[in-house]
């Protein structure tokens, strides 16, 4: 597999189906694991990193748990390609830094990705469209077992799976859901949600994880502690709070419709209108307008767009995607022109239907 082939497809988790997919864009579980007989990647010298990569690459491409994974070495990959993989949610930003002997194994549907030599030797994740944390856990648990069959993980009976950063030891699990919360943002109720989540020990992050901004009204909610609670307990902590946030967002959406349907319809239609007609548009404005359009589709105010296409546009209009899809390196201003053209084309194709 190469980056080029990925530009022709899109992640299955964007298809916009699954439980609660009007608000829950995706569910994700990741596990951090390390091999017992090597230093953690940051401390390992080149030879040790190479050995770890070779070993794990072999395991990952040997159909663990019956899964076909395609291994992509990040060494020697251009900056643009690495940025593309970040936008695609297949690797973390940290993993895209230029360091030797790094890689990622990805399933065909992009539901599974396993980073090698990131902060830990193994960072595996399973993604699903909609609210599907149990399915994520079952799958990643099987994958973890399969990988462990041939390597010895660093583990202690007291501290569980040992990780490079003490904030991840124990289960090494991060359970997260990506929520689209435009109504709570419009009404500024979102800060109440943050406060409530903080009190129960859950973290809120933007679309691209730690330190990223809440672009397009997307928020990632995830567990913070990893030690002293079982995987099931940690999954339950996240899972149990989601219905409350969903009903809050839905309640506010209904209130917005009831109070000022015309105003909301106008906002949504203007956003759609700009996206269909703009001649130059920044990534930031795109995200902002797409968020309104996504809300409009969910509320039935826009009826000629598929959710999957809206979801895909969030990813495909980002800088590296745009340049890869167009096979061109573009400066910011050129990108804005290209982005507008790309969106116009996608939205016109979409709303007039296939020929």
């Amino acid at each position, binding site marked *: 597999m190469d980056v080029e082939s990925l530009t022709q497809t899109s992640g299955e988790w964007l298809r916009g189906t699954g439980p609660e997919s009007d608000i829950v864009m995706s569910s994700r579980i990741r596990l951090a694991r*390390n*091999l*017992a*007989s*090597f*230093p*953690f990647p*940051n*401390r390992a*010298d080149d*030879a*040790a990193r190479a050995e770890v990569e070779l070993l794990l690459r072999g395991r990952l491409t040997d159909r663990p748990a019956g899964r076909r994974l395609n291994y992509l070495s990040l060494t020697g990959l251009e900056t643009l390609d690495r940025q593309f993989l970040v936008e695609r949610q297949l690797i973390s930003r940290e993993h895209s830094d230029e360091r030797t002997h790094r890689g990622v194994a990805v399933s065909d549907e992009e539901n599974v990705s396993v980073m090698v030599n990131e*902060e830990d030797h193994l960072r595996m994740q399973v993604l699903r469209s909609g609210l599907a944390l149990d399915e994520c856990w079952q799958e990643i*648990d099987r994958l*973890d*077992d399969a990988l*462990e*069959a041939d390597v*010895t*993980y*660093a*583990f*202690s*009976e*007291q*501290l*569980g*799976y*040992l990780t*490079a*950063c*003490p*904030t991840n*030891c*124990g*289960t090494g*699990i991060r359970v997260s859901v990506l929520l689209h919360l435009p109504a709570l943002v419009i009404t500024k109720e979102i800060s109440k949600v943050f406060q409530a989540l903080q009190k129960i020990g859950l973290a809120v992050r933007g679309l691209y994880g730690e330190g990223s901004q809440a672009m397009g009204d997307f928020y990632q909610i995830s567990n913070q*502690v*990893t*030690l*002293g*609670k*079982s*995987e*099931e*307990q940690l999954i339950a902590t996240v899972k149990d709070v989601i219905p409350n946030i969903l009903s809050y967002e839905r309640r506010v959406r209904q209130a917005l419709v009831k109070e000022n349907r015309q105003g909301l319809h106008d906002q949504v239609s203007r956003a759609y209108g700009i996206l269909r007609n703009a001649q130059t548009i920044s990534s930031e404005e795109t995200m902002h307008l797409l968020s309104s359009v996504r809300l409009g589709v969910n509320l039935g105010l826009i009826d000629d767009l598929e959710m999957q296409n809206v979801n895909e546009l969030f990813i495909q209009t980002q800088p590296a995607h745009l340049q890869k899809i167009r096979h061109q390196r573009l400066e910011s201003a050129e990108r804005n022109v290209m982005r507008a053209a790309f969106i116009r084309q996608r939205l016109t194709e979409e709303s007039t239907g296939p020929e």
Partner: protein
Amino acid sequence: MKKCGRCDKPAVLHITELQHGEVKGLLHLCETCAKEYLSHGQGSAPEAGLAEAELPEGEEPLEDLDQHVCPSCGITFKEFRSQGRLGCPNDYIAFQDELLPLLENIHGETQHVGKVPKRAPHASQKQYQLIRLRNQLRAAIDEEMYEEAARLRDQISVIEREITPSQAASDA
């Protein structure tokens, strides 16, 4: 424990004297002598001394903790504190006393509950030894100490043999 540099009581404070950012001297003092030292301001740059003195009584001063080294990967506790990342799995044993309060702070717990690898966890301990031996082997080769390298290689293969049959048994 070190003795006070001015009397015979145990030293509880360890003061680094700095001048223009350079270390001018190290003082190990008992509580009484330290108070006297600090109140008289004998240090040329007292801020370093005061920072150390703020540590609660009875706890080992940071400066000493910082010198702890993991025998497997060679990282010091100070390096861990500045980078926030540990060097190898054995650090959890090497820095156990320092890490447990930290883990308690982060997670509110210090006992793992949850998934356990199918392989025997104690196999990990042997693996940490392998990290150290392989490091030493590389160093020996770099320094062209081939007899030492051969000895280390033998030691590594003994441990590798020890690990493999037990894993095969636990897998069965």
